[in-house]
């Protein structure tokens, strides 16, 4: 029992920093990122910790990515209702598009150019990543940072390998454009 707990703890310790950073980049908010990591860990421990160890990592990142996607969905719905409920608000302002959340860029992140001028490469990179549509962002982080292959990434994202290739390629292209004047 003790060994099992230690093995699971070591695994969680090995993924928690990266999980936090992925969630933080995607939400732009540390508190929400911690909530997402907490939910992911609880779900993973409850549902998947009995699975073979070689499945742990992709399963954990699958839960994490689903939680990040849930966060964006809820955020989108909340924003829609907030706009609709504003008493004297601009109810005709359709600030929320018709596109599905997977294709929406994070509206919270702006002024990437300004940050690049300031020479803050890390902040510029984060801003550029956060500005990507969610599915591109996920594909990029899983492929380029977590170093998953196309098949693993597709399984974690719950989409086809072709979609992963498309999202990843677009993400690389967009990031290179956004960061071309920077040192990255």
């Amino acid at each position, binding site marked *: 029992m003790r060994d099992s707990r230690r093995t699971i*703890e070591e695994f*969680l310790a090995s993924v928690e*920093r990266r999980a936090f950073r992925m969630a933080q980049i995607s939400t732009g908010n540390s508190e929400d990122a911690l909530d997402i990591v907490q939910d992911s860990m*609880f779900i993973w421990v409850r549902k998947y910790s009995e699975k073979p160890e070689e499945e742990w990592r992709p399963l954990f990142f699958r839960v994490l990515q689903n939680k990040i996607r849930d966060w964006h969905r809820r955020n989108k719905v909340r924003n829609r209702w907030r706009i609709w409920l504003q008493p004297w608000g601009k109810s005709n302002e359709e600030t929320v598009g018709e596109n599905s959340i997977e294709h929406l860029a994070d509206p919270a992140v702006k002024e990437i150019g300004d940050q690049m001028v300031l020479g803050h490469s890390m902040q510029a990179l984060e801003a550029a990543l956060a500005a990507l549509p969610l599915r591109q962002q996920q594909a990029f982080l899983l492929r380029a940072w977590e170093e998953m292959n196309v098949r693993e990434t597709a399984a974690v994202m*719950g989409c086809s390998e072709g979609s992963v290739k498309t999202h990843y390629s677009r993400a690389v292209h967009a990031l290179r454009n956004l960061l071309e004047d920077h040192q990255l």
Partner: protein
Amino acid sequence: MKNQDDENSFLKKVKHSLDQGEENISAETLSRLHRIRQEALNTKYNKNAWGIKWIPMPYPALATAAMVLLAVLIYLPGDREQAPVNPLDDLEILASNNLDFYEDLDFYAWLAEEEPNAG
């Protein structure tokens, strides 16, 4: 060829920056991550202490959300525009604590496919 080299160099730098960001997480955040990890482990190894957190409670949450929605719909002036989407869809999303119900299916299909190629 040069383009591919440029891309590889770009990706290497991005990865390096992301790694640095991971290394620079604040001590306070690391401490909170440590606490979260321990709480998650306690749900498995010390169920009495944390089990209550996982009592499924979709119905109270759904009922509360439904009442709030109903109150809003009743008391708002009648000339407001319709909500842009079906309110029940939103209600389901807002009330849901578990949108990961679809997690397993295609993942295990992939694992099954992967199995014959393993080691």
